[in-house]
């Protein structure tokens, strides 16, 4: 009887599993290929086009020199360099934050020694 009880308890303990959380954010890095009404298409370094959905809660940050400044979607242009922090939702990526530097700003920063 005791052995059965011990076996049952052991089985119960084995069933108790610790769930390890996994990071769920994706970083999409590349240049803006297209700006749609509700999404941005980013051309990544390996030549792929990745579409990221824009939400009302998406935050826009403009990188100027060594400073981050809050920005708007209208500040973003095709050709800008972007780093998008996005959350996968099914097959789509939803942007939490779009950080970008304009073509001019990136070129100016690159030319500095």
């Amino acid at each position, binding site marked *: 009887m005791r052995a059965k009880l011990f076996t049952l308890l052991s089985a*119960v303990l084995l*069933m*108790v*599993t610790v*769930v*390890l*959380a*996994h*990071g*769920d*954010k*994706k*970083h*999409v*890095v*590349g240049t803006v290929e297209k700006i749609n009404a509700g999404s941005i298409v980013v051309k*990544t*370094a*390996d030549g*792929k086009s*990745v579409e990221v959905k824009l939400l009302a809660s998406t*935050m826009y*940050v403009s*990188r100027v020199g060594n400073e*981050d*400044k*809050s920005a708007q979607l209208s500040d973003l242009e095709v050709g800008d*360099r972007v*780093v998008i*922090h996005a959350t996968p939702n099914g097959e789509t990526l939803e942007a939490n934050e779009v*950080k*970008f*530097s304009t073509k001019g700003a*990136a*070129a100016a*920063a*690159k030319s500095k020694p």
Partner: protein
Amino acid sequence: MDTRDAATLSVRVAFCHWFPSPFVDYHEHAMSRSNVILLVLLAAVALAILAAASLLHNGLSSRATPTSFEALLARNARHLAIPADARKKQNPIAASPENLRDARLHFADHCAICHGNEGTGDTMIGKGLYPKPPDLRAAETQKLSDGELFWIIENGVRFTGMPAFGGTHGSEEDSWKLVQFIRHLPQLSTDERMEMERYNPKGPGDRAEENEEEDFLHGVPMQQKPESSHHH
């Protein structure tokens, strides 16, 4: 005796068995009391089995979200656990931009790993907790008194992921400043959030990735994989 009479009689017998008349003798009364105790014990065992079955059904996973009933019970238990005089305490720290900034950076460094810089609780750790951290901007949190928020920061909340910070670091002044910051969370600006990001604890991998992304924004060609998973 028809079926209906038999049923009525059996109910009467059962009633007298469980709820004896005060005029029955001591022996009968004692027996009934022991039966009541047995009944209560059986009910407790049945409840325990139900609770265990419910837990095992969910695999004891902390991924689950507490039911609204559980949340209601927990909120009320927390409310009762906070002493009345602690609830009435007023924030002794003057509201100033300097104090708010101190609290903001303190929050970014100590609290944001679970609560997120915006206080939403939408973080890797926050999503994995049971119960999930509350949205600090929401009415359920904002309607707590300053004293209640302070007490929770100082003493934590048992059976949740909220630790007691009182006596382990900083001072009560820091906790009162955090109370001010929690009040400010619904109006957190993008600039404030960006400043907080610089104070969020990060591992070497995250730092390296962040530096590569910064370099990319400064015109350096991308060296790493174009898409990467990020654990925050």
